[in-house]
């Protein structure tokens, strides 16, 4: 169909999935401020051609350095869930004190600076005690502190301004701070940047930083986790006070002047910078980098407005408007980000399956439906939750995975006694025994694990090579699904999808894209690398006894293929069954040299059609509730037996769908077939007429056991 061709190319050329993947990144919070910065640069750059000259930039870094210091403190306070409005007054008092102590009193400038810093910290401490320990409201407390400190400053100014301005601080370092630049950048900005880097490190890597974020995220949860909430809150105000004082010292060095308007309205400017950067006023969300971005934006705007000749009132008006806008964006973004992500992450693409074969109850057709599996004898009904894979050891003990991360064992010979063989966590999926009887297991969300005979759990692999152009981090394994072991010990395992977590695995079907891959773990050097990627939910893997290739099933692709990992055809993929009428799952050896494959569900023509219409699926995901989405029909499944040429030798079904509506795994053992199902609460046991009563899986793989 012509429209199908168009749709196919449209979805091949435009990678829709990028939107959702970018939105799922935490750095996307920076996107809006970054965009804003670009707009500000473009607008003011066009209005003021002189803005980007070296001199102008260097001037701006002086203001930016002071702002950034104050903003860092405020960021820390806001991230812990508070607010500090007193920074402007502290800044003014610090300026005055520095000039007074260094000049009139005559202290060496370094000592004076330390005293001023301590004073800032002390004011912060008062704030912190009131808010952190006495639980006063942060907004009111710091507002009152703003007025008090401002009043003190004004009083001192009135009495001593003449004395102070008459004496200057004399020191080469002080002069350097005041007038020199390093590669065009003011020292204050360098100091601020260094502190920003330090703050970033503390907040993201060290315990006190995590405590601050935890307290901001949820005071109660932080308290319950054993964090001293009161002390943490108090500490943030001390930091904020000291940093505001530091900014005041740089201001003193730069201008050496006193004025009633020093630091006036600074709290609004800094608040604008912090919120515009993307640090959330609600606490718990934010970063130092965001604040740096916000400060740069605010400095560019204020600077440009002054140069454009706007009166200072107008400048405040603009800043206030920006603050309001930033707060509005912050609130809406926080509220809707998760929703937006949930809706936009699923990115369907065009996928056409080969024509659906007619499947009926007519006995002469290859996939003739029957009810043989409805008679399967149940094992462990209600004692297992989602045995995706089952396996038997040489002694006949039955092992299965479960949804809650255990490997369950039913003891031979009657499989009536159940025990937890090992607890791993994650969702235990594919199972295989290696040469010395250790159980290798694929764990959804965790990777490839090994359980030794002594029941020790060892991680083998949870990382593979990261591809260069992938936005989601595809080096971690999200959904290791099934595995098999080559005669030389290499483990080949499938990762069904790199875009969805274990609990969302069926949603991958709605995308119709090859999101999965096959990974090889080499026990000789412990390395893992991707051998085959871009596959549609690669699931079951089964070695072909030639020692050069294995079979793998692609569930959503409804096909079984053969991959050569060695030998002359190395690297080649050959189709074995390209057009199954259902969705294949695990593949395993049969005693007669053929292969069993579990069928987890059947193709529904309405779903096949939807796979050719990605827009319809996108609308579906956007518009209706998740439980209502159209999925592959997973309520009828069965087992097929096929040979290497792709011929279907036999098929077994539960046509009624009561006991084994979907079969994800099958193992033959001493004449019986054991069945597992990912949504089932039982394991089934079916007697295969005429099968070799001595044949076991471990025997076929590793020879007779000693």
């Amino acid at each position: 169909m012509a429209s199908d061709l168009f749709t196919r190319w449209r979805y091949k050329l435009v990678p829709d999935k990028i939107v959702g993947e970018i939105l799922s990144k935490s750095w996307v919070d920076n996107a809006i401020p970054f965009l804003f910065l670009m707009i500000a640069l473009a607008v003011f750059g066009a209005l003021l051609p002189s803005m980007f000259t070296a001199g102008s930039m260097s001037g701006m870094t002086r203001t930016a350095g002071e702002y950034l210091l104050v903003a860092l403190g405020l960021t820390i306070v806001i991230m812990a869930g508070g607010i500090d409005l007193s920074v402007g007054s502290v800044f003014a008092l610090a300026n005055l004190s520095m000039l007074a102590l260094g000049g009139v009193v005559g202290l060496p400038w370094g000592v004076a600076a330390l005293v001023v810093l301590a004073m800032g910290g002390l004011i912060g401490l008062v704030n912190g005690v009131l808010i952190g320990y006495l639980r006063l409201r942060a907004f009111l407390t710091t507002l009152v502190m703003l007025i008090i400190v401002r009043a003190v400053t004004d009083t001192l100014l009135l009495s001593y301004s003449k004395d102070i301005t008459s004496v200057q601080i004399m020191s080469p370092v002080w002069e350097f701070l005041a007038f020199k630049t390093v590669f065009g950048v003011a020292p204050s900005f360098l100091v601020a940047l260094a502190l920003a880097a330090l703050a970033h490190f503390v907040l993201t890597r060290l315990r006190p930083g995590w405590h601050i974020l935890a307290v901001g995220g949820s005071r109660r949860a932080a308290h319950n986790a054993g964090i001293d909430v009161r002390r943490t809150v108090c500490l943030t105000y001390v930091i904020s006070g000291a940093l505001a004082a530091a900014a005041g010292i740089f201001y003193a060095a730069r201008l050496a002047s006193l004025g009633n308007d020093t630091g006036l309205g600074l709290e609004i400017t800094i608040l604008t910078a912090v919120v515009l950067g993307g640090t959330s006023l609600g606490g718990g969300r934010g970063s130092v980098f965001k604040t740096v971005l916000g400060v740069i934006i605010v400095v560019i705007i204020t600077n440009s407005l002054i140069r454009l000749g706007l009166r200072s009132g107008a400048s405040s008006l603009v800043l206030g408007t920006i603050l309001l806008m930033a707060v509005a964006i912050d609130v809406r973004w926080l509220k809707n980000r998760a929703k937006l992500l949930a809706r936009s992450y699923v990115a369907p693409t065009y996928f056409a399956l080969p024509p659906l074969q007619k499947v009926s109850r007519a006995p002469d057709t290859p996939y003739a439906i029957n009810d043989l599996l409805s008679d399967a004898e149940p094992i462990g009904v209600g004692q297992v939750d989602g045995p995706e894979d089952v396996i038997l050891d040489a002694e006949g003990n039955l092992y299965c995975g479960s949804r809650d991360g255990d490997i369950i064992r039913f003891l031979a010979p009657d499989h009536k006694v159940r025990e937890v063989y090992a607890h791993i966590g994650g969702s235990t999926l594919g199972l295989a025994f290696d040469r010395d009887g250790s159980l290798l297991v694929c764990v959804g969300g965790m990777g490839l694990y090994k359980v030794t005979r002594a029941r020790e759990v060892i991680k083998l692999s949870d990382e593979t090579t990261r591809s260069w152009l992938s936005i989601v981090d595809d080096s971690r394994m999200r959904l290791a699904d099934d595995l098999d072991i080559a005669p030389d010990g290499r483990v080949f395992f499938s990762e069904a999808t790199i875009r969805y977590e274990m609990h969302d695995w069926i949603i991958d079907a709605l995308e119709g894209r090859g999101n999965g891959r096959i990974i090889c773990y080499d026990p000789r050097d412990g390395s893992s690398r991707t051998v085959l990627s871009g596959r549609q939910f690669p699931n079951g893997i089964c070695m072909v006894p030639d020692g050069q290739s294995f079979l793998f099933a692609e569930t959503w692709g409804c096909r079984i293929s053969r991959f050569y990992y060695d030998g002359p055809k190395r690297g080649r993929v050959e189709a074995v069954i390209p057009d199954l009428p259902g969705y294949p799952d695990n593949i395993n050896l049969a005693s007669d040299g053929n292969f069993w494959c579990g069928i987890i569900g059947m193709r529904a023509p309405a779903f096949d059609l939807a796979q050719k219409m990605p827009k319809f699926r996108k609308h579906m995901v956007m518009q209706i509730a998740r439980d209502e989405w159209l999925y592959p029909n997973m309520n009828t499944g069965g087992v097929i037996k096929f040979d290497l040429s792709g011929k279907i030798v036999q098929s077994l079904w539960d046509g009624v769908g009561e006991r084994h509506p979907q079969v994800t795994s099958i193992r033959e053992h001493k004449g019986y077939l054991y069945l597992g199902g990912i949504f089932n609460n039982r394991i089934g046991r079916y007697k295969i007429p005429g099968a070799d009563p001595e044949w076991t899986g471990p025997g076929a793989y590793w020879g007779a056991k000693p």
Partner: protein
Amino acid sequence: MIGWVTDRIDRFRGRGAYAATVPPMDGALRPNTRLEDADVVARIAAPDNLVVYRGQVLFSSGATIMALDLASGAMTDWRRCPTEVSALAVQGETLAIGLTDGSLILAGDSDRTVKAPGGCITALVDGGDGRLILCVGSARNPSGEWKRDLLQGGATGALWSIGLNGVAQKLSDGLAWPSGAAVAGSGVVVVEAWRHRLTQSGAPLVTDLPGYPSRLSPAPGGWWLTVFAPRNQLIELVLRERDYRERMMHEVAPDHWIAPSLSPAVDFNEPMQGGAIRTHGIIKPWAPTRSYGLLVRLDARFQPIASYHSRADGRFHGVTSALQVGDKVLVTSRGGNAVLALTEVQP
């Protein structure tokens, strides 16, 4: 301009007029299992159209009209018709039989066959004073093709009245699959399935039902309303997606459509919704479903006051007719292939 833009946004996000939402089953329609637990009187393929004629309970099954003995549950062939029966009604001593080929047999002491004014007879109702009210579901599709009519957005049905003299008179048209009617007070109440509502002389009585309603029959102090299939978000979405709907009707067999159904899913080629995966051997009663069993009791003003359900995991879906006999209510579950009897029906 702004209207066009908001319309586009609504369409993209599925809001406003494009919201694929379904009214919840709540209030009088709160789910229970009373229909699922009802006594099974008889098991027979696709029973429909319960009536009492000359003191005998009759219903149709395919082309046969069966007589049902209430006490024993025994069924006897009462009459065979040339094609499938689509509606029955009793008018005094006459039994009106509507057939899927559009002919109308007026059976009494002697038969009289007339051509109905429309081929798709969905319901017949005694209009009193010798009139017979006839619902013609669609001008485009026969009654068996009701899924197609729904997916085509069908609104070509009509309501006719046939007088004693055999002259047909159109009462109204442009109806979305009229599938039941009742004469009450000043006029005829019509059930429009595809619009999920009951109207009287064009004015809505009940709107936004959570399913597709069909026939009305008298109950003490009110009415029985059968609802033969549930509304479903996915189907509502498909009804809004023209491209997909048209290709589905063209490329997929009707049994495998995303469309309401009379019987619980049996075929593995049928579409399945996420919430309907059989987990631990069980399908949830509240799973999304394309078939459902629902009988609603209405008061004299046609407002729902009670309901009887067979839910997503149930057997007796596709309820198409109900008949009050003494203190019992007989119900046909066309999709469940059973005639049921509800005994405790005091609202």
